[in-house]
């Protein structure tokens, strides 16, 4: 499938023979930026509106609901940190989908890479005991990254050199990774002292990654944001990213042009797997202190959703993950204050995403936002 991130009308402005004056170009750029914010925001509003009907049908107040979403997810420092904390693993999980998507690949097996990365980090911590955390913690992260990159990179290699469909392969590999991780956690790597919650040996207090300065949110958020920025730079500002986009648009053409498609595929899938594994690393090093079955928390699947909503744009992953984190953070208040079941936010999320995705069809249809419509008008006038 195509990673359709190019805003409609963008190439047109550049190839237009009678190029409009600079002021108009800036206005056109502004208009397109406004459009890319206004349409999703409008869609979110519309989604809430439809959801309100659902609530009214249940005899619940939509205003009270909105108020709780605000208070639970966004309206206070505690709520904001709650949302940011929940967003952190989603950033990594979404990159595992978004990076391969640049090449037109649909990878849905991030969950396995997350868990495997966590197990690798916890296992690596054992021989490193006694070392300086400054050295050991990066090495643990490296172990996680290596495991994740190898796992999803293998999916890419199968695709590139063997023609194996990456969607099904990544899903199968994910299940295999979960089985392997469980086997290790409850077998070879099990700490005999972990009784009713089978876990690997603890990585130790010294190797724990703390919170961001002044925040009650662990470093996974900081590194996650950096990873998204780096991924943006890679895909939008480098020749490799450009080559990947060409290969994603038309594989055959890219091959004819002599692009190293196989290597691109392996690199981007491996990078995606590395990102997913970092989510697992932070779960171990910043939260659990060991690897256990709780690593399999479903971040990988939520990440797929985040990536598709962000249209595989690494920068757009940031707000989408934050929005999702906020909605999930408010779930508790909604359960407690409105006596609605936990599934309520699933319905809301599903509905919101449907509307946001449908709204993509509206791009380029509103005149104030659409320079190509202005151009038509100018031509009509002249």
């Amino acid at each position, binding site marked *: 499938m195509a990673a359709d991130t190019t805003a409609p009308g963008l190439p047109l402005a550049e190839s237009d023979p009678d190029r409009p004056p600079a002021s108009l170009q800036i206005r056109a750029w502004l208009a397109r930026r406004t459009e890319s914010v206004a349409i999703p925001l409008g869609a979110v509003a519309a989604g809430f509106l439809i959801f309100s009907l659902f609530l009214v049908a249940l005899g619940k107040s939509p205003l009270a609901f909105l108020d709780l979403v605000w208070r639970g997810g966004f309206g206070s420092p505690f709520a904001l940190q709650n949302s940011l904390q929940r967003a952190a693993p989603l950033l990594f999980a979404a990159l595992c989908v978004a990076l391969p998507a640049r090449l037109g690949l649909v990878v849905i097996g991030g969950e396995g890479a997350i868990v495997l990365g966590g197990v690798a980090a916890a296992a690596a911590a054992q021989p490193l005991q006694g070392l300086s955390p400054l050295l050991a913690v990066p090495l643990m992260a490296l172990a996680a990254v290596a495991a994740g990159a190898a796992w999803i990179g293998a999916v890419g290699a199968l695709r590139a050199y063997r*023609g194996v469909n990456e969607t*099904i392969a990544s*899903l199968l590999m994910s299940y295999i990774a979960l089985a392997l991780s469980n086997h290790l956690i409850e077998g070879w790597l099990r700490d005999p002292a972990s009784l009713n919650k089978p876990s690997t040996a603890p990585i130790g207090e010294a190797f724990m990654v703390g919170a961001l300065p002044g925040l009650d949110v662990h470093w996974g958020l900081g590194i996650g944001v950096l990873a998204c920025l780096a991924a943006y730079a890679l895909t939008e500002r480098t020749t490799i990213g450009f080559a990947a986009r060409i290969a994603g648009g038309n594989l055959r053409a890219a091959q004819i042009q002599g692009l190293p498609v196989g290597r691109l595929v392996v690199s981007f899938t491996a990078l995606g797997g590395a990102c997913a594994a970092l989510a697992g690393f932070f779960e171990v090093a910043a939260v659990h202190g060991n690897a256990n079955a709780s690593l399999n928390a479903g971040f990988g699947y939520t990440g797929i959703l985040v990536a598709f909503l962000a249209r595989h744009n690494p920068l757009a992953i940031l707000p989408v993950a934050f929005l999702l984190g906020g909605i999930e953070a408010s779930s508790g208040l909604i359960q407690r204050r409105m006596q609605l079941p936990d599934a309520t936010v699933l319905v809301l*999320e*599903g509905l919101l*995403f449907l509307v946001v*995705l449908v709204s993509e069809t509206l791009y380029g249809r509103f005149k104030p936002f659409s320079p190509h419509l202005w151009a038509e008008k100018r031509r009509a006038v002249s």
Partner: protein
Amino acid sequence: MSDDLGLTTVLLAVIGGAIRVSTPFLFVSLGETITERSGRINLGLEGTLVFGAMSAYATAVMTGSPWAGVAVAGLAGGAFGGLHGFICRFPRVNDVAIGIALMLFGSGLAFFLGKPFIQPSAPPLPAIPFGFWSDLPQVQAALRVNVLFLAGAALALFLWWAFRNTKAGLIVRVVGDSAEAARAMGYDVDRVRLLATATGGVLAGIGGAYLSLYYPGSWNEGISSGQGLMAVALVIFARWNPLACFGAALLFGGAGALGPALQSVGISQGYYLFYAAPYVLTLALLIATSSPDRALTGAPGELSLK
């Protein structure tokens, strides 16, 4: 227990497991085959499966008739499929993404509406005891075949035939291979795809009814645990061939029975790895049957995911 009987037990379990567990995979993958043959992907069938399971169970509890449950599940599935088909006709709307959103929406709605139905018991779908000739209870159990399994098998055969030999089958294939050619021939591409996706939804909903009304025969939020997603993936494995879907579903169901069966005959170490057997086996077969040159054999030309 002697080794001899152990092996028989495992073999019987695999056969029985193939028959018991495969039906939801079969229905979902047949449904998805129809959808994908028309050129669209509906990744949301996991949500449809779960909603089908819930609505079938709820209907059976309320009416006392499991068949009414199957009907309602089919209708609900058709509605979800129709929604997907309708939305995806708009330009720039990504069918894969819509499927993922529908997966969430369908499961969420099923969990939400299904809360009151976790406790009550629903009447199960009937099964035919094909094992009547045997004295062994294991054989009798393995060969208790649900009507939906037979219907699914017949449907696989019919679809395989229909895609080649009927006008409707041809239209779906033309639309899936080249929208342009189909338009030139005067077919309404969006309408064909809408109908194909809706039909796929109906089948996925019925697959869900099998889950909640026959095997495991219960409604709870973990009833599917990703079977719908796996079934969609199996379509690619089966290369859009309905008969191969049947084979893939049997293989997957049979391999899934391996883990418990091995433990029951005393092979109890490393059961996580045995439980991964269906995935390992599918992956191995997938790698063995793929090749870089003919990666896309059988794939509909319009498909965004190959």
